[in-house]
C-alpha cells in the first residue's frame, strides 16, 4: 500500500481521537480542523488510493535533492487536506539534514489586514524564534542588529518591552503579537518599510546563513494559510505584484497559494518564477464520463468508517452522500447534518432519509444565494468542463472556485472543472429557465 497518507481535516475537541460508538459522538467527530497529533493521525488518517498518491512524497524527494534555495507553491482547494499534508511533510523531512520553520500566518499575522511587509517581518521573527528553540547561539551582533531594526520599524518603547518580558514573552513573540493585533503598529511598520524592504531582506538572509552555519543543516521555511488570502487586491497585491520578493529568502521555502488565483491570467508568469507548483487535487468520485471511481469512493467511505462504527451509517446512504458531494469538506458537512437528523429522530443509524434531507437543505440554500450571472457561468463550466475568466475584469469563475460552487479535479485523464456535484440537479433546471428567458 502506498505509504502516503492523506490527512483529513477533522477536529475532535477535548474528547481525544476515538472512533464513535454512538451518533452523538459521531456528530462531534465530524467537525473540521487539520490533524496534528500522532494519535489523531493514527485514528483518523486514510490512505489515498494508489492511483492518486499525495504529491507530498514527491515534494519531499525534491527537497532532499535540492541544491539551491528552491521555492515551491503548494496548492489545493480549501478542505482538501493541505494543512495536514504540510504537517505530514514536516514529519517526513530528514531532521538530520534540515531545520524546519513551519508556521501559519493565521497565527502570526492579521489575515484581514495583511501585506508583504508584515509577512517578511514575521518570517524573520519566526526564524529567530526557531533558532532560539533549538538552542543556537546566534552571533550577538546579528541578533542585536535585527532586534534594533525590529524595534525601530515597530516603534515600540523600552518600557513596553520590559513589561512584556516580565509577562514571559520573548521580544519576537511580543513584536509578533503587536503586529497581528494592532492596526497602528501595522501602519507604522509599513510606512517604515516603504523604502527599506530590501534592508530587511538583507538582514533576513544574513540570519538564514547564520542559522544554517550554526546548525549544520539547511533551513526550510514552510508557510501555511497564505492561501487564505483569496480575495481582491490583497491577494493579488501579495502574489502578483510582489511575488519576486517571495523568491528572495536564501533558503528552501514552501508557500501555500490560493487556488482561485491560478485562474487569473497573471498566474502563468508567477508560476514560472517558482521551481514548482504542487497541487493537492480533489479526488473525484466520478470521471469526466460520469463513471464511478471505486477506489476514490472507498477512500471517502473510509473517512467516515474511521470516525464512527460501521453500524452507525447505512452503506447506501453513505454512498449517496459521497456521490452527491464529491469533495471532502462538503461531504463531511452533509454527513454531520445527516447525523444530527438521525440523532433527533432517535434512529439507530444514519439512513437515506437523513442524507437526502441534508442534501436537499444545502441545495435549497445554494439555489437561493447563487446569482443569475453565476448560474449562467456554472452552466458553461458544466458544459465545457473548464473554468476560465474572460479577462482581468471578469472574476465570476474565480468567485465560483473561491466559494467551491465550481470545483477542479485531477485524475489520470488530466485536470478538469465541473459544478459542485451537490448542485448538478439544479443545473438542468437553470438551463431550461435560461432557455425560456
Amino acid at each position, binding site marked *: 500500500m502506498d505509504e502516503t497518507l492523506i490527512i483529513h481535516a477533522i477536529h475532535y475537541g477535548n474528547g481525544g481521537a476515538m472512533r464513535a460508538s454512538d451518533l452523538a459522538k459521531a456528530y462531534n467527530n465530524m*467537525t473540521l480542523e487539520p490533524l496534528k497529533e500522532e494519535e489523531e493521525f493514527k485514528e483518523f488518517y486514510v490512505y489515498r488510493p494508489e492511483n492518486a498518491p499525495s504529491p507530498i512524497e514527491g515534494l519531499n524527494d525534491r527537497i532532499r535533492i535540492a541544491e539551491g534555495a528552491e521555492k515551491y507553491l503548494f496548492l489545493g482547494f480549501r478542505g482538501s487536506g493541505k494543512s495536514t499534508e504540510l504537517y505530514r511533510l514536516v514529519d517526513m523531512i530528514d531532521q538530520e539534514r534540515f531545520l524546519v520553520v513551519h508556521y501559519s500566518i493565521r497565527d502570526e499575522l492579521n*489575515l*484581514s489586514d495583511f501585506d508583504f511587509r508584515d509577512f517578511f517581518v514575521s518570517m524573520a521573527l519566526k526564524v529567530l524564534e526557531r533558532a532560539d528553540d533549538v538552542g543556537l547561539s546566534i552571533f550577538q551582533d546579528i541578533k542585536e542588529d535585527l532586534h534594533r531594526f525590529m524595534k525601530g520599524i515597530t516603534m515600540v518603547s523600552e518600557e513596553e518591552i520590559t513589561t512584556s518580558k516580565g509577562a514571559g514573552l520573548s521580544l519576537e513573540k511580543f513584536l509578533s503579537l503587536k503586529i497581528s493585533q494592532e492596526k497602528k503598529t501595522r501602519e507604522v511598520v509599513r510606512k517604515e518599510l516603504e523604502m527599506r524592504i530590501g534592508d530587511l531582506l538583507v538582514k533576513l538572509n544574513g540570519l538564514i546563513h547564520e542559522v544554517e552555519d550554526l546548525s549544520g543543516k539547511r533551513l526550510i521555511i514552510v508557510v501555511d494559510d497564505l492561501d487564505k488570502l483569496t480575495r481582491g487586491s490583497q491577494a493579488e497585491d501579495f502574489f502578483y505584484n510582489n511575488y519576486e520578493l517571495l523568491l528572495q529568502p536564501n533558503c528552501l521555502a514552501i508557500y501555500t497559494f490560493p487556488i482561485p488565483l491560478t485562474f487569473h491570467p497573471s498566474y502563468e508568469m508567477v508560476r514560472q518564477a517558482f521551481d514548482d507548483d504542487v497541487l493537492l487535487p480533489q479526488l473525484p468520485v466520478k470521471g469526466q464520463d460520469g463513471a464511478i471511481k471505486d477506489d476514490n469512493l472507498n477512500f471517502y467511505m473510509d473517512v467516515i468508517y474511521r470516525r464512527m462504527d460501521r453500524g452507525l451509517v447505512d452503506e447506501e446512504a453513505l454512498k449517496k452522500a459521497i456521490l452527491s458531494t464529491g469533495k471532502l469538506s462538503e461531504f463531511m458537512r452533509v454527513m454531520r447534518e445527516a447525523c444530527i437528523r438521525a*440523532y433527533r429522530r432517535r434512529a439507530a443509524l444514519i439512513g437515506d432519509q437523513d442524507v437526502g434531507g441534508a442534501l436537499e437543505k444545502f441545495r435549497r440554500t445554494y439555489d*437561493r444565494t447563487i*446569482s443569475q450571472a453565476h448560474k449562467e457561468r456554472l452552466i458553461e463550466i458544466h458544459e465545457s468542463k473548464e473554468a476560465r475568466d474572460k479577462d482581468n475584469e471578469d472574476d465570476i469563475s474565480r468567485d465560483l472556485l*473561491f466559494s467551491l460552487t465550481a470545483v477542479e479535479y485531477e485524475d489520470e485523464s488530466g485536470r478538469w472543472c465541473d459544478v459542485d456535484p451537490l448542485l448538478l440537479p439544479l443545473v438542468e433546471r437553470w438551463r431550461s429557465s435560461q432557455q425560456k*428567458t
Partner: protein
Amino acid sequence: MEEFAAEDLEEIETVIAELEISKERGNLLICTAASPTYRQKVIDVIAGRFPVRLQKVEGGDELISKLKEEKGHEVLIWEFPERLSPDLIEALNNFRELFYRPGAPSLLLLTPSALDDVIRKAPDLWRYCGGYHELKGREGGLAFQVLDVMTTSLHYRDKEDLLRRKRIDEHLLQTLKDERERIKVLQDLGGVHYHLGEVRQAIEHYEQALEIAREIGDRRSEGIALGSLGNAYAALGESRRAIELYEQSLAIYCEIGDRRSEGAALCHWGAANAALGETRRAIEHFEQALEIARNIGDKRGEGATLGNMGAAYADLGETRRAIELYEQALAIDREIGDRRGEGVNLSNLGEAYAALGETRRAIELYEQALTIARNIGDRMGEGNALWNMALAYESLGEAGQAIESPRTEVVRRQLARWQEEAGSDG
C-alpha cells in the same frame, strides 16, 4: 416554545440538541431569522436551557478581540448587524477557528441577508460551521400583490369614480342596440363591479358578454370575456375554475393570433397556479408570457409578468432571484410610467428585503410605495404599505415608529376598514 412558528419548532429543537451534545467540545452553529424580535426569542429559549453569554458585535476587530478573550461559558450566542461589513465578513472568515477555542459551542445569529454574505464571501466560515438553521418566522407582511395584465384595464381615482362609471354603463345598456357595443359596455361594467369587490355581479355581466359574443361569433370578445371570468373566479379563490377559463381564452387568442392577449392569459394562468401553490408551474407560464411580451415589445405585459415571476420566486424562498426580477419590473414601470405597478413592485421589493432581514431597507421601500399609492389614490396599495411598515417597525421593536399608526393593531383595523369600504362581497 409556543412563540415560534410551527414549522420552526423542529429547527429550534435541533439547535438545542446540537448545543447539548457539543457543549463541552465546541461547535459553530448558524441560525437565521429575518425579524430582530424573532431572533430575540431564539436567545430567550436557549438562555432558558443553558448558561449563555451574549456577545453583540459590530466590527471585525471587535469580533477578533472578543473571540480571543472568550472562555469558560457553556453556550456563546453572537449577535450581528443586519448587513455584515466587509471587515466583519473577513474577520468571520479568517478567524473562524477561534469560535472553537473557548471549548463551548457558539451560535451565530444572522439575518438571511447576512447568511448570503457568509456563503458568498466567507466560505471558510461557511464550510467550517457545524450546522445552520433558517427560521421562517411567525409573521411576514402581506402576501405579494399580483399585478394584473387585464385585457380591459380600468383607470379610476376613487370609489366615486367607479360608482359614476357604473351608472353610466347601466344607462348605456338601456339604450344600446349594437351587439358589439353592448359587449364592450358589459365588459366595462363587469370590470367596475370587479374593482368594487362585487365579484358575483361582475361574473353576471361577463357571462352576458360571453353569451352575446358567442351568438355573433366574435371570437376576440369571447376570449376577453372568458379571461375576465377567469380573473373573477380567481378573485373568489376558485383557482381551478379560473384555470379552465384561462385555457379556453388562451386557445381563442392563439387561434386568432392575438399575441398580446395570449401573453396576458398565460400570465393570469400563472398567477392562478401560484395561488394553488403550483409555483414551478406558475413560473413556466410566466416564462412563456415573458417571451411573448418581449417578442412583441409589450412593455406593460413584460413588467407585470416580471413582477409576478419575482413573487413566485419569493414564494420559493429564492429571494435574491425575486429581487432581481422586481428590479427589472420596476425599471419597466418607470420607463412606461406605470405608477401602480411601480408601487406594487416597490412594496414587493420591500417584502423581499424584509425576508432577508434588511428591515430598514424594506421600510425605505415601503415609504416610497406609500407615497406613490397616495399620489395615485390607490387605497389598497396605501393600506398594504402601511401594514407592512407597521410589521417592519414591530419586528425592529419600534412599533411606535409606524407612520400614522403607532400600533400594528390600528393599522390592521384601518386596512380592514378600507377593504370593507371597497365593498367586498367575496
